[in-house]
């Protein structure tokens, strides 16, 4: 192990870290924004709407992310229709293609997670909402989604970590993310241990940070389910 290689090249790793964080956070946010309406339609939409959503989820969950990325990055150039359209400047860029593939991928997984969470809404809550005279939209917004998000959180935290790990594939199409940085350093100095172990440490640190933040969020969201703290249960002594 030659630590000086790592220390001298830390700037490359930080560039990689920046790209990884950007790719993962943007695709997670866009994916979640896509997944919420898709999951609602998947549960309550009419069968003609449900079918394409099912096909979308089936395709993106059943094929490797690498192949999806190749289909978009290399594949779209095959069609003159796309090549001549205004979108081509975007799809020519590796960065945009990676972002596009990651977004659709995480949208599909998140749709499936949310679908299950929405389906598991207790009947009583829905009946109570109807009895209170809520409209369909109000019921989804106030009753179904808040409780579904809570139920989905543990599975969604896995999805966040999965996306972080999946983002390492961006390095295959020339993007300098953390893995990309490691590959540059490995080929430049022929030092695989230093290069990839450093990348591994970066990923481990981010993973632990995510796990920590989700735990915090869980405590906050599930506050009403926590056992009451003993300090508040002061038993008054009888007079």
């Amino acid at each position, binding site marked *: 192990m030659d630590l000086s290689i790592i220390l001298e090249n830390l700037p490359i790793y930080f560039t990689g870290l920046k790209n990884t964080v950007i790719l993962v956070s943007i695709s997670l946010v866009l994916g979640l924004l896509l997944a919420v309406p898709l999951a609602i339609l998947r549960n309550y939409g009419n069968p003609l709407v449900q079918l394409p959503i099912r096909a979308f989820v*089936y*395709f993106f969950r*059943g*094929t*490797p*992310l*690498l*192949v*999806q990325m*190749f*289909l978009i990055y*290399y*594949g*779209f*150039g*095959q*069609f003159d229709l796309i090549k001549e359209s205004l979108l081509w400047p975007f799809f020519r860029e590796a960065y945009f293609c990676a972002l596009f593939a990651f977004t659709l991928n995480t949208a599909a997984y998140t749709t499936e997670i949310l679908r299950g969470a929405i389906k598991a809404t207790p009947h009583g809550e829905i009946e109570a909402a109807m009895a209170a005279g809520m409209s369909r939209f109000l019921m989804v917004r106030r009753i179904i989604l808040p409780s579904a998000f809570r139920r989905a959180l543990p599975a969604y935290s896995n999805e966040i*970590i999965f996306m*972080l*790990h*999946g*983002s*390492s*594939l961006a*390095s*295959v199409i020339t993007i300098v993310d953390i*893995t990309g940085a*490691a*590959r540059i350093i*490995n080929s430049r100095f022929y030092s*695989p*241990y230093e*290069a*990839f*172990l450093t*990348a*591994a440490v970066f*990923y*481990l640190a981010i*993973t*632990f940070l995510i796990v920590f933040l989700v735990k915090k969020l869980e405590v906050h969201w599930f506050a009403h389910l926590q056992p009451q703290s003993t300090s508040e249960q002061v038993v008054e002594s009888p007079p």
Partner: protein
Amino acid sequence: MFSLHGYGPSIFEGTILTLEVSLASLFIAMLLGICGALAKLSRARSLRLIAQIYTTTIRGIPDLVLMLLVFYGGQMFINQLGPMLGYDGYIDINPFIAGVSTIGFIFGAYMTETFRGAILAVNKGQLEAGTAYGMSAFMVFRRITLPQMVRHALPGFGNNWLVLIKTTALVSIIGLNDMVRKAGLAAGATREPFTFYLVVAINYLVITSISIYILKQLERRYSVGVREF
């Protein structure tokens, strides 16, 4: 659009290799998973600690980074080890071995968790009864724990298998001729990347769908002795 320009057989060969990599990795993953699960449930603290470190680190590092580490790092390690053992030639690490061992090692961690849960789900009283009959610990495991944990392990096992198949796509990056790489070669020659990658995607969908069907059958078979509620 859907002409494969004679590359069909080549893609088919790649599909066979993908299946080989998947099955070989699954075998390693299952062995590691059983060992890991037993280590996690053992009374020895050091074993529990090792298993804990194994599962935590593997789940925190991307598959691709581990694979590149094993492929490039393993190469260097073996060639440093060779002279120490009195071997002078250069040893080339085979991408098949690098790929299979990495994927097996990664999914061994996931299998550990699955198997650990399944072992814990087996009725304690039965194990005690086995011990009371004078069975050795190994025999209790083989005759009582193992047959019953299969039922509890199958759903998690199935999920791991489906993820594992998709992970094998990564071996194309370290130069193994699986179907993704074969598709890449064909795409380069014909300039029809979308067609070939779509074929590969459909192949994955077919493999996963067949797997799901078989897993359903297995689950039904191993749940025969249990009443469905």
